[in-house]
């Protein structure tokens, strides 16, 4: 990983930074709106975990949801936009390896996801009383989960050749995965079928493990979540790198 990798990473970070109104501020506003509405409407209900307010439960879930959505959006939209406009050729003509290509897109996605998550968290902290149970778990899930979403974004970006194909990923995969991930509720409050389906959703483990770092309580063991999110990262990396090496859709 040398200058070429660092340059592609820099370009990908600059790309979202130059339109930060859309890529950082807009997600902050929409996530805070979720927070205000849901905390107000559902905040009066019984707490999900004893002694923990609904807001303290909700904030980590919304922060992780914002991180996942924005990490995915960064790598996927950058790739599909470059493919549609044709300027991906500037990267494909260079001596960058598949690993450098993948790493730069994923790392830039992580940077955006973590930036959005950080500003949402800071803003939420101004309105709600939050605590930190374990900074290590927060950091681990923050890094792994944004990696997972960024890698999924690269996979989607390599596959999609049109904007509507990317919209299908957003609407039929990412949106259901994030909304059915336990960001707003505990898995134990779901009917058995939805409970079972949610168990196959890696975003659920990302949120549950991340939330454990704040409140010290979770639906499943954070170690289980760590294994599942980590395994998903490995599987996505292996698949995407194999596709990149084969030239699939990029170097036909």
């Amino acid at each position, binding site marked *: 990983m*040398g*200058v*070429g990798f*660092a*340059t*592609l990473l*820099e*370009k990908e970070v*600059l*790309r979202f930074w*130059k*339109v930060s109104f859309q890529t950082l501020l807009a997600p902050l506003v929409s996530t805070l709106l979720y927070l205000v509405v849901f905390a107000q409407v559902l905040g009066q209900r019984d707490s999900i975990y004893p002694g923990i307010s609904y807001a303290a439960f909700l904030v980590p879930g919304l922060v992780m949801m914002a991180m996942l959505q924005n990490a995915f959006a960064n790598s996927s939209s950058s790739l599909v936009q*470059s493919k549609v*406009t*044709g*300027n991906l*050729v*500037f*990267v*494909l*003509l*260079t*001596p*960058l*390896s598949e690993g450098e290509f993948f790493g730069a897109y994923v790392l830039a996605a992580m940077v955006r996801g973590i930036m959005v998550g950080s500003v949402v968290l800071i803003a939420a902290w101004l309105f709600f009383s939050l605590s930190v149970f374990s900074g290590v778990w927060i950091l681990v899930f923050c890094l792994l989960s944004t990696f997972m979403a960024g890698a999924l974004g690269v996979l989607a970006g390599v596959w999609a050749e049109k904007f509507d194909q990317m919209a299908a990923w957003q609407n039929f995969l990412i949106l259901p995965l994030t909304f059915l991930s336990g960001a707003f509720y505990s898995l134990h409050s779901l009917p058995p079928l939805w409970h079972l389906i949610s168990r196959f959703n890696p975003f659920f483990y990302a949120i549950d493990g991340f939330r454990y770092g704040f409140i010290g309580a979770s639906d499943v063991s954070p170690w289980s979540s760590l294994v599942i999110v980590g395994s998903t990262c490995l599987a996505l990396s292996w698949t995407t790198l194999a596709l990149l090496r084969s*030239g699939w859709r990029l*170097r*036909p």
Partner: protein
Amino acid sequence: MGDSATSLPAIKIRGAEKYFGALHALRGVDITVEQGEFFALLGPNGAGKTTLISMLAGLTRADRGVLEVMGHAVDRDYRQARRALGVVPQELVFDPFFTVREALRLQSGYFGLRHNDDWIDEILSNLQLTDKADTNMRALSGGMKRRVLIAQALVHRPPVVVLDEPTAGVDVELRQTLWKFVRRLNGEGHTILLTTHYLEEAEALCRRVAVLRQGQVVACDTMAGLLQARQASTLEEAFVALLREV
């Protein structure tokens, strides 16, 4: 360059074949371009010129055959092959997020070159882009965008430069600026591979020429040899005669 380097062909293509589904786009192409040549690759639309260039650049994979740039195989030794090659794509593509200078710095960085501003300034000056250096790519005219594409191809100082129809749809002034600069590059030792539909440009600039038709090389000769063999006075006459041959 040393003797061993100069003895290598700049571009070597042997038995290159490519299928797109049922379409047999390239049918065993053999072409050698020596170092320092100004070489024309001609052919009607759909002959396979851009496919061949894409294969050289690693944008498309060959189904069969060997393709080398400065002795480096474009698949096995792709890093060195791509470092040796600068490609000006046919399509007028650009990244709307960046200024001209930013685009050139990034392109330079992809090739591992930081602090390359002296060379970037020189290219900008030669392509009459200095006053546009801090202009966003979106704000440039088509001709200016074409110049930036050329600058991007040269930013890592490649010994071999491929120009895929660089003057398609551009005005006379840009053509003159471009050819003056490219001639200078060739004079300094860069190998130039040119595809164009403007045959008078190829005739004026190139010493050797290959003609592709339906994915096959139907002629590969010096410009003089090609004209003589078809008893033609211009490249256009020779080209038309060649395409009529069975």
